[in-house]
């Protein structure tokens, strides 16, 4: 009963501890900044990825919990009150138990933060996918582990500097995981994935989330028992449990590194080569959008882009139907199947599912600097498909767009939405000598030279309707890649850079 009373008091103090409060405020500030800088419409959350993103930021409250519980457990020693308190009736091991119990409320706060964060992401109109409960529980468990580590540390050394050193150690583990240090990914509290990896359908993911959770739980148990044993708890049962938990931690720690299972590799190969077999399609106007089921809501975002492009094309030239198909290419992710995109298999897959020449779109979406090529790349690829006209489905594609055609395709793509226009400006700022738009992690790239980009950027500063009218009135000339950039610019009401024609000389333009 007294231990419970002490746990109540220590819990309240743990929640009010400056270290924990500062950590939670930092967490909230980071979240607010993220939400403010991206804006609601700038976020395209994939919930099976968002779930694990909640873990990294929870390391802040975890650090706060570690420092807080460590200082609480060393409080009497640090203040010289140990001689007074050591002879009080409540046994040390029960005091330790109370301190350990006080690590639970910060973990519950972490659970609330996790819930709020995933709810925020899930209620975004652009959200797709579904979160994993195991991944969501991991963050709060890390906070619990950190709190218990603070208490255990206090039972081995009452120094106030031990906590900050433990935090440094924790940071080193997370950094090792993030940097991909060999064998370190799952040793630390959070298994950090490459931020450049495209999202995957939940069924094709390979994260040992449950095993990692068991590993964290076992490590937490080890810390709890070490703290209790150090405090004079009954040694025999506790020692037996400690041995069991250490063994569990070792086994689960090792199992986390299990390689990609054969059946999952086979499913990935199939999804990569024959995505149509696993997808559902939605028809909107002239365009059929096909996606893995959990990504199908993304079709609304794709449609904003395709509508923005088709709206600027003369009615007679909208020779649909058009198709958009979501595809995976895992070679860049290190666990892929093919070294190059299986273009032939994709063409066959499209034919089989009656979507010949479907424009590829990846599983990522957005305009940010990291994943941001996605929206503009798709827009360029779709605009290129529209400009190409009928009968070009399945034709081999080059990697360079040239002259008037490049101007037309890039302008159509960029003006499609405000985000695509911003994305082009942003990409131009970060590029030199033109821009390259990648789809599926560089597996298919389209480049545009600098003079054409300059013309398009000038056009974006002019009224869209005016440029659109000029485009419609000169459509045949502006979609012909024999038309020079200078003439295209003149037809559209702007002037081209002086070296416009030289830039295209010697380049291999996309075959049309």
């Amino acid at each position, binding site marked *: 009963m007294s231990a419970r009373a*002490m746990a109540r008091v220590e819990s309240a103090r743990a929640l009010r501890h400056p270290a924990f409060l500062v950590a939670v405020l930092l967490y909230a500030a980071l979240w607010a900044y993220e939400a403010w800088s991206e804006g609601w419409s700038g976020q395209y959350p994939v919930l099976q990825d968002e779930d694990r993103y909640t873990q990294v930021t929870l390391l802040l409250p975890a650090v706060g919990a570690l420092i807080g519980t460590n200082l609480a457990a060393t409080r009497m020693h640090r203040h*010289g009150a140990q001689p*007074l308190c050591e*002879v009080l*009736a*409540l046994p040390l091991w029960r005091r330790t138990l109370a301190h350990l119990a006080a690590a639970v409320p910060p973990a519950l706060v972490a659970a609330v933060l996790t819930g709020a964060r995933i709810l925020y992401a899930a209620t975004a109109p652009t959200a797709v996918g579904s979160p994993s409960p195991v991944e969501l529980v991991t963050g709060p468990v890390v906070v619990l582990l950190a709190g218990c580590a603070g208490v255990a540390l206090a039972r081995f050394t009452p120094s106030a500097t031990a906590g900050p050193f433990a935090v440094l150690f924790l940071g080193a583990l997370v950094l090792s995981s993030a940097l991909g240090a060999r064998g370190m990914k799952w040793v630390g509290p959070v298994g950090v994935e490459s931020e450049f990896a495209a999202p995957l359908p939940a069924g094709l993911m390979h994260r040992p989330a449950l095993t990692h959770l068991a590993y964290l739980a076992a490590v937490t148990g080890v810390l709890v028992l070490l703290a209790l044993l150090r405090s004079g708890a009954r040694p025999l049962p506790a020692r037996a449990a400690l041995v069991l938990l250490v063994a569990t931690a070792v086994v689960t720690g090792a199992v986390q590194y299990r390689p990609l299972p054969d059946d999952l590799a086979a499913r990935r190969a199939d999804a990569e080569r024959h995505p149509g077999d696993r997808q559902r399609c939605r028809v909107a106007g002239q365009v059929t959008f096909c996606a893995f089921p959990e990504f199908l809501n993304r079709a609304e975002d794709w449609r904003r882009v395709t509508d923005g492009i088709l709206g600027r094309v003369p009615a007679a030239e909208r020779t649909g139907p058009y198709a958009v198909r979501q595809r995976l290419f895992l070679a860049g992710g290190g666990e892929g199947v093919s070294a190059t995109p299986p273009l032939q298999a994709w063409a066959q897959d499209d034919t089989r599912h009656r979507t010949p020449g479907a424009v590829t779109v990846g599983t990522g979406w957005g305009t940010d600097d990291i994943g941001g090529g996605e929206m503009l790349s798709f827009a360029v690829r779709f605009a290129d498909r529209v400009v190409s006209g009928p009968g070009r489905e399945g034709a081999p594609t080059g990697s360079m767009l040239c002259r008037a055609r490049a101007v037309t395709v890039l302008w159509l793509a960029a003006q499609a939405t405000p985000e695509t226009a911003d994305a082009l400006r942003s990409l131009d700022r970060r590029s030199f000598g033109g821009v390259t738009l990648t789809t599926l992690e560089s597996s298919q790239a389209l480049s545009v030279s600098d003079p054409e980009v300059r013309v398009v950027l000038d056009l974006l500063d002019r009224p869209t309707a005016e440029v659109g009218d000029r485009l419609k009135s000169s459509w045949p000339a502006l979609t012909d890649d024999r038309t020079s950039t200078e003439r295209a610019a003149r037809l559209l009401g702007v002037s081209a850079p002086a070296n416009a024609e030289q830039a295209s000389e010697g380049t291999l333009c996309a075959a049309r």
Partner: protein
Amino acid sequence: MESEERSAAQQVGLDRVGVRYGRRTALREVSLSLGRGVTGLLGPNGAGKTTLLRTLATASTPDTGTLSVLGLDPLTPTGRQALRRRLGYLPQNPGLPSHFTAYDFIDYVGILKEISDRQARRTEARRVLAEVGLTADRGRRIRKLSGGMRQRVGLAAAIVGDPELLILDEPTVGLDPEQRLRFRELIAGLGEGRTVLLSTHQTEDVAALCHKVVVLDHGTVRFQGTPAELALLARGRVWSSGERAPGALAAWRTGVGTFRNIGVPPTGASLVEPTIEDGYLLLLDGDGDGDRNGDGDGDRTPADAA
């Protein structure tokens, strides 16, 4: 029947207790018997007072000998645990968590003393803070309290749960005269009906408070008896003179201009009534090794004094 009465009267009993810190002997075969009331523990620095108090308070374990405290054996885990529920201990210069308020700290100590009922604990915290005169300051953080107030917080912590045995290690150190008087009042009140063991350098405190006094030196008991009996040790050994007596063990000019001398008085010396301080000084300094009996154990009894 007589044995039972003696056992009831004896609250603390030590039999040939010895404590060593490495090669240094802190307590050497100490045997003591204490009953209810306030017992003063006198001795110079390093005499072993704190070691003795820590041993009785279960903070350290003796290397040799046996103990009986409140009828319990603190050397066994169950005895130690049971004893901790019944004793209060104020160590020398106790540190206190400075960011706690006085009330919060006493409430916390209440938890550590296993008062699990929240209401009972609150009532007890208010009671002990009132007893040490800190009711008005109970909401102030400890770091904002004066030294005397902090000492009183420590005493309040010691008396939480109304312990039967109270062990106070130099509780009046660093207090101004007024605070010391308040402490005496407090301790005198606490000594009614319970056993209080008070370690101090202040012989005035012993004279004012204690019904029994124990003098410890070099880890051995040099005297145990009443304060009057300690003073009696110096009867016929303290005299007043106009000049410092050359053969005196200690001599000092008093406020009235005469010298107070302790030692072997010359013939015709003007003897004065001794105090316990005289007895204490004579006991410790009188014969170098302090063993005035020459019996080797150095333990003076009232009979020796008489």
